[in-house]
């Protein structure tokens, strides 16, 4: 007699090995959908949990760091300050794979400066923004990504234009800029997988509806709006190894983007033919979408040219955190020589 066995990945781990504590977010929260896709992506990529660090700030989205990858170290830090903490962790141990979840308040308001400086430094990490345009834990204030003219029950009408975090990322020099929708599970998952393979900061701005405070039909951050208006740029598939390519496509139908170290992203053309390697086109795409009130999703920009922060700093293979005492403390002769310079 055989028992039904859970599927295992290349490391022999089951999907359950990538779960975390049960979510305490509201039933139906978009963030929980993203959590599910983080778990799925990590499982499918067979990420060693002990190599991943889950990083977050403060807010509903940041709480979700507890709900996935329970076998990974993590740091639920300060509001808007996850980028700084992750930067330090990366420099201390650049062999770790930071996976960060943040929100529109955490990244777009209190942490906007840190976000942009993180991108400038190109700290290699997956940076997921769970963007719902509203502050949930404090009961429904507008965030900086809320649309102009948006209405909320208590906050009234938002008179200010939104900050587009993908546009901010592009301008700051980010080499992987994507937008997705929590209701589009496959796209979210494939983007997360591609982001893990990216050599630098990979930003995924996921529109993730707040079912409690901002899910009414005229909100651009609602499920109904997302489902009705989402315009994927392409059908996106992450391919870990080139030899796994099986599907054949007619010329011009797909665009394959090779990543550092071998993996690939296959983009199957849909309505438009956006070239994610073209930064000016990416900026124009976002500006046109904003003007037209369109909700485009997919890989907006990809470029792997820039060195990571650890590379810029010239760090060696051994992480700073693992250097032994005799490497860290110069010998007595070195101090004697220094003393002589002050005589």
């Amino acid at each position, binding site marked *: 007699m055989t028992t039904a066995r859970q599927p295992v990945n290349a490391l022999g781990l089951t999907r359950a090995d990538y779960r975390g*504590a049960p979510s305490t977010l509201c039933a139906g929260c978009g963030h929980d959908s993203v959590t599910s896709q983080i778990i799925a992506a990590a499982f499918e990529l067979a990420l*060693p*949990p*002990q*190599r991943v*660090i*889950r990083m977050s700030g403060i807010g509903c989205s940041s709480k979700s*760091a*507890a709900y996935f990858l*329970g*076998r*990974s*170290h*993590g*740091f*639920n*830090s*300060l509001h808007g*300050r996850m*980028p*700084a*903490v*992750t*930067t*330090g*962790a*990366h*420099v*201390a*141990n650049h*062999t*770790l794979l930071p996976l960060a979840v943040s929100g529109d308040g955490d990244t777009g308001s209190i942490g906007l*400066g*840190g976000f942009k*400086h993180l991108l400038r*430094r190109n700290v290699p990490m997956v940076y997921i923004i769970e963007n719902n345009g509203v502050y949930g834990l404090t009961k429904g204030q507008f965030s900086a990504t809320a649309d102009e003219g948006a209405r909320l029950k208590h906050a009234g009408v938002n008179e200010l234009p939104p900050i587009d975090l993908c546009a901010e990322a592009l301008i700051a020099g980010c080499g992987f800029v994507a937008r997705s929708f929590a209701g589009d599970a496959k796209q979210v998952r494939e983007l997360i997988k591609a982001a893990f393979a990216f050599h630098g900061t990979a930003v995924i701005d996921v529109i993730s509806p707040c079912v409690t405070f901002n899910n009414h039909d005229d909100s651009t951050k609602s499920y109904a709006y997302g489902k009705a208006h989402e315009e994927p740029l392409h059908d996106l598939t992450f391919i870990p190894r080139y030899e796994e390519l099986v599907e054949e496509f007619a010329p011009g139908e797909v665009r394959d983007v090779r990543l550092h170290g071998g993996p690939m992203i296959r983009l199957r053309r849909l309505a438009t033919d956006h070239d994610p390697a073209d930064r000016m086109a990416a900026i124009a795409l976002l500006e046109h979408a904003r003007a037209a009130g369109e909700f485009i999703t997919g890989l907006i920009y990809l470029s792997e040219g820039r060195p990571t*922060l650890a590379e810029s*700093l*010239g*760090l*060696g293979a051994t*992480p*700073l*955190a*693992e*250097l032994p*005492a005799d*490497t*860290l*403390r*110069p010998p*007595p002769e*070195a*101090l004697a020589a*220094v*003393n002589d310079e*002050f*005589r």
Partner: protein
Amino acid sequence: MNEFAITAATVNGSGSQTANNAIMRAIFRMGIPVNGKNLFPSNIQGEPTWFTIRVSAQGYSARPASVPILVAFNPRTAEADLAALPAGGACLYPGDGAWRPARNDVALYPLPVRELVATSGFEPRMRDYAANMVYVGALAALIGIELEALHGALVHHFTGKARPVALNFGVVQAAYERFMADFPAAPAASRFRLQRMAATTGQILIDGNTAAGLGAIFGGVSFLAWYPITPATSLADTLSAYLPRLRTGPAGHPTYAIVQAEDEIAALGMAVGAGWAGARAMTSTSGPGLSLMTEFAGLASFAEIPCVVWDVQRIGPSTGLPTRTAQGDLLAAYFLGHGDTRHVVLLPGTVAECFEFGWRAFDLAERLQTIVFVLSDLDLGMNLWSSDPLAYPTTPMDRGKVLSAAELERLGSFVRFADPEGDGIGARTLPGNPHPLAATLSRGTGHNERNVYSERPEDWKANMDRLRRKHATARRLVPQPVVEHDPAATVGLISFGSSDGAVREARDQLRAQGLPTSYMRVRALPLGEATCHFIAQHHACVVVEANHDGQLCDLLRMHCPAHAARLLSVAHSDGLPLTAEFVAESVQELA
């Protein structure tokens, strides 16, 4: 002999630092204890600056109350500078400038600055530098600085570059000879003459920020994140200057990283992230930056992350005076954060201690798994002090309680904030530890001993109680006070940090006036039992500090309530270091 001071009044940005440092190092190399204090403006170029060099055979290092030799090289301040000169003093000034001193109770020495500069060989744009070398040569003649020692000091300053040494020394020599020719009787008649000693043999001349940075390097710092701020910038600069030489690994890679952050919030945030991941992480700042670091300080304390913060204090509140000193951040640092937050704060009193606490701070931070503050100040950090050489660390690096995968395997369980040893310190695991039990989600939110989010009142209380046990452990581990008992004393003096020099000198003055005192210099917070013991041994204790409100005195009253009535406060803060005379007079009034 060998017991006087010189003030050079110049214009900032004119290169007078080269001149002043050359004078100091030459005197130092004549074996005579010497210290310098630079009173400079928060400005790049063109504002008045005063550099006071104190020569003291007895090794006194406090700011002198009276300075008998004036180099009046700034016409804008010359009149006021001259007015402050005590009778019997000497004034050296450009004799070919517009300003004419009018006093007949001091010796006046006009110097032919323009003429000497014109023949100096300096390019026209460098002539301000040459002008400053004129007073170096004239002073050398007047007070007896050996020309050979000055030459050596210039070689040191220009790191052996022959041309600037020759140019500058040429002006020094010419000015020296001209002074001897113009005022042949002056040297013999001068009340202020140097005589070679052997008191600085083996010693070094160094500022506190350089010593602190070197201390961090020998403490194995592997990560510095910082944001520029006066007067802390030269501490970070020291790491940038020395790390490439001292800490390049066998394969040619740096064994450190330096990141200039976008602000002080990020600077400490990066240090916290690096400390969490296992690096020896630090940042350096001053008061305004310390304020910005508040939230992260609370997080590092509560999430129990090791890191080190150097606060080179300047006078506040607010922007205050960026180039003036004070000891005003003591309470702010100790309680930095909201809720019940108390930190470990080290208080170096000498440049040698800046070095020592530079390495020791990392051991304490990792042993106690917390943020450790080190409070220096502008006077200690940016001024030059004669000192014993920097002493190599006496204990091996202490990385604290860190569990490896093998240890986890042997233990079979991991409870992050268990306290089996009763010292309040749980074992931690570092990110990247491959053992399946190693993972934990660090957090600033309330948590139980397994580091899982908890709103249970008993979990909160138990965690805070353990943190206070850890604070009690810190009391035992931090540097203990330095106590000097005078068996004849009924009065004790208490101070900390850079006020040490003024208090030491004041004790000698008070003893001469018939008031012997004992002395305790506090070297760290939290305060331990030794402090209360010292206070109890004296009828009265005067707490001397360079801030407005008497912050150490307040802490001592909290710590030793039974003896609070014995504590008297002498607190003074105006941007300048304390003088011994002020301290002695204040103690006489109170005692």
